[in-house]
Structures are given as structure tokens and as C-alpha cells.
């Protein structure tokens, strides 16, 4: 997960004074190879940063130095790996970077199942009214309240369930984006009047389940337990829960895996109450702050 990995290490492609430019084809392929492995790259040019400045937060500097590899230190005075890649292939240059990383764990696009896909809500502050509906809705503690001004913020992005855009569906202002979603306006595309109208006319998700979603879940759970005691079939109880959640999944485009991973109805109720308490406290604090501002 993201907390256990280092930020994208920065590689400097140095083509300033004291070095020769790379072949354009090699440069293109090297850039793509590094980016697709999760590295950030800065290209330093003549007239741009000095080598020392360009490498201030870098961990590797690559360039065609003609064999005269310079000593370079970062902003903290630590030596930076500098490699002459004048005679290297792209694969060899990438291998030098990987070697310099010395096994420090990093999130990588090419790591298969170990990759963390950066999927989380992004708030359009120009549209958000801090109604806190998303905070009340999310069961995974993604949202929080900024202590300074009591506004909504995305506090724990890594808690978000990949490919689940459900909270954006409950936002009445179309203010929640998921930049990696496949369609607008959730992907960040401009919001049209039609989008706003659709949100205002949106069917209440809980109504789709016949009223209070929590009550419905409890009821279904009780029914399933009852049947389980009679039929002694865990499979039947699971199937019942899935049927109960099908409409919710369809209405809010929630991936089935997310619904299957939901906690028990009792735990959902506890978390919802906690989220609602936080949202109410934030609204009160904002109203209080607004009132004080008006009085003064």
C-alpha cells in the first residue's frame, strides 16, 4: 500500500553544460521506460537549471559526460548517483536506475497485483458546498474535515475502494471527481446543466431499497439468519445479501467486490453514525464561524 512505499524517485536527464545531448530516439524510449516503471524524470537543459540545482532532489543523474563523471550532491549534501550513459542501451540505463534505488519499495505501474492504483475522490472546491453528504455516506473513512476551516477534505485517499465512484453519485453539486473514471463529469469533464439537473432529480439510493437502507439491510440480515437456522445454509444467506445489494450496485455503479466486502449491517450502522456525527460537528463549526464573522 502507498504508505509503505517511497514517493516516485526523481531521475535527472542532464543535458546541460559538460554533457552531450542524447540521441532523440534513445531519449524518447528512456523517458517512457522510466515513467512506466514509476520514476519521475526531469530534463535539465542548457539555459535551465545548473546541474547542482537540477539534482537537488534527485537520486540519480544520467547524462553523456564523455567519461568525465562529475561529483554531485543533493540539497542535503548527500552524494547523488551519477552515471554516464553515453555507451549504454536504454535497458542498461534503466538497470542503473533500478540498481541505485537499492530495493527501496516503491509503487509501480508494472508490479501487477502489487500495484496500488491511485483511485480516490477529488473535490471541486468551486462547486462543493460542504454539505458533508459524502462524508456521511462513505463507510471507509476517506473523507474528513479540515481543522482550520471545517471544510470537507479527502483525508485518507488510500482507503478508497478502487473503481468505486459511489460517493460521487450522492453529491448534489456534482463536485466529486474520480480522475481515473471512464466518463464525464465524474472524470473531471466540465459539468453541464443537464448533469446538474440529473443530480437534482436523482433517485435517493436508499429509496431504491424501499426506504431506509440500513433498516432494509438489518431486515434482510435477520431474514437470512432465520433461514440459516432453519436451512443451515451459509450459501443461502450470502445469496440473499447479494440480492439485497444488487439494486444498490446498479444505481450507484458500485463494484460487486466492494459490496461483498461491506461489513455487517451493525458495523455499517456504527460507522454511518460516526460519519454523521463528524459531518454534523463540521456543519455546526462552520455555522458558528460564519455567525461570529457576521457579528463582528
Amino acid at each position, binding site marked *: 500500500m*502507498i504508505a509503505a512505499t517511497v514517493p516516485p524517485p526523481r531521475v535527472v536527464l542532464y543535458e546541460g553544460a559538460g554533457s552531450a545531448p542524447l540521441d532523440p530516439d534513445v531519449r524518447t524510449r528512456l523517458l517512457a521506460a522510466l515513467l512506466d516503471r514509476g520514476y519521475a524524470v526531469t530534463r535539465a537543459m542548457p539555459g*535551465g537549471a545548473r546541474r547542482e540545482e537540477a539534482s537537488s*532532489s534527485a537520486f540519480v543523474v544520467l547524462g553523456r559526460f564523455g567519461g568525465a563523471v562529475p561529483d554531485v550532491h543533493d540539497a542535503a549534501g548527500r552524494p547523488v548517483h551519477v552515471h554516464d550513459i553515453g555507451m549504454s542501451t536504454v535497458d542498461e540505463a534503466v538497470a542503473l536506475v533500478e540498481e541505485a534505488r537499492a530495493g527501496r519499495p516503491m*509503487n509501480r505501474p508494472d508490479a501487477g497485483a502489487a500495484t496500488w492504483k*491511485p483511485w480516490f475522490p477529488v473535490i471541486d472546491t468551486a462547486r462543493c458546498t460542504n454539505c458533508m453528504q459524502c462524508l456521511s455516506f462513505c463507510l471507509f473513512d476517506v473523507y474528513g474535515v479540515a481543522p482550520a476551516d471545517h471544510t470537507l477534505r479527502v483525508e485518507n485517499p488510500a482507503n478508497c475502494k478502487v473503481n468505486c465512484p459511489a460517493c460521487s453519485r450522492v453529491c448534489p453539486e456534482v463536485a466529486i471527481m474520480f*480522475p481515473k473514471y471512464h466518463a464525464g463529469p465524474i*472524470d*473531471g469533464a466540465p459539468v453541464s446543466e443537464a448533469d446538474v439537473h440529473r443530480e437534482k432529480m436523482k433517485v435517493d439510493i436508499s429509496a431504491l431499497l424501499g426506504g431506509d437502507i440500513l433498516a432494509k439491510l438489518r431486515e434482510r440480515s435477520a431474514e437470512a439468519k432465520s433461514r440459516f437456522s432453519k436451512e443451515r445454509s451459509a450459501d443461502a444467506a450470502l445469496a440473499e445479501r447479494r440480492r439485497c445489494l444488487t439494486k444498490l450496485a446498479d444505481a450507484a455503479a458500485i463494484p460487486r467486490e466492494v459490496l461483498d466486502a461491506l461489513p455487517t449491517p451493525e458495523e455499517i450502522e456504527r460507522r454511518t453514525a460516526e460519519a454523521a456525527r463528524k459531518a454534523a460537528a463540521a456543519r455546526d463549526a462552520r455555522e458558528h464561524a460564519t455567525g461570529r464573522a457576521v457579528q463582528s
Partner: protein
Amino acid sequence: MGETAGATPRVLYCRCAYAQVVPGDVKDAVLDGLARSSVAFEMVPDLCEMAARRDGQLADIARAVDPARPLHIVACWPRAVRGLFHLADARLPDAGVEILNMRAETAGDLLARVGLDVGSGTGATPPEAPA
């Protein structure tokens, strides 16, 4: 090391490496156009990932924006990009930043808006000659 200082990136390119929502041919062609130019640039694997980490590089980039030397961010929808910087506690100013959208524009249009002539036989040329 006699070059003039000026570490501010003029072009920030996002590879959107963790998803397939940006057309691959567009992001590859933009990368190639930038790589063949003689402009300095900053390239990151994924702005979303950096925002989730509240990576200090985003704050550095936002702080260094200079309306006299516009910063071109080649990524996705402007609304999303501004939101990502905000999430990273790095508010982008309105002036001096142009956000170019690889989800909705062609590579040729994007490179032209950065000021690169993609039609020349020698590849792209810089918007201004280095000092």
C-alpha cells in the same frame, strides 16, 4: 557549470501510468514530441499518485509558477488537475498555468499549444531559445 539558473519547469507532463483512461497514442506522441524538442521539462508517472501522497514536489511546482513564463501542465481535465493540486495542499494560481487535456485533444494540438512545431523535419522547436 555556467548556465543561467531557472529551475522552474515550463512543461509538466503526466504519464497517467496507473490507468488506461488517457489514449495511449496521444500520450506517447506528446512524450515523443517533448523528447525531440529542446525544452526542459518535468515528467511524472502519475499526478494522482503524487496528490494522494501530498508529494511536496507539487507544492514546489505551484509555488514556482510565474505568469511571465507560463507553465503548461499536459495531463487530463483541468478541473481534475486543479483538484489534485488542491488535495496536495498546493493551490495552482489562475494566472501563469495552462492545463492541456490529453483525454480530449490531439497530440498535434497539444504540442502546438505548448509552442512546439511538430511539423518541422527536425522535430519540435522550443518556444523560446535558451539563454
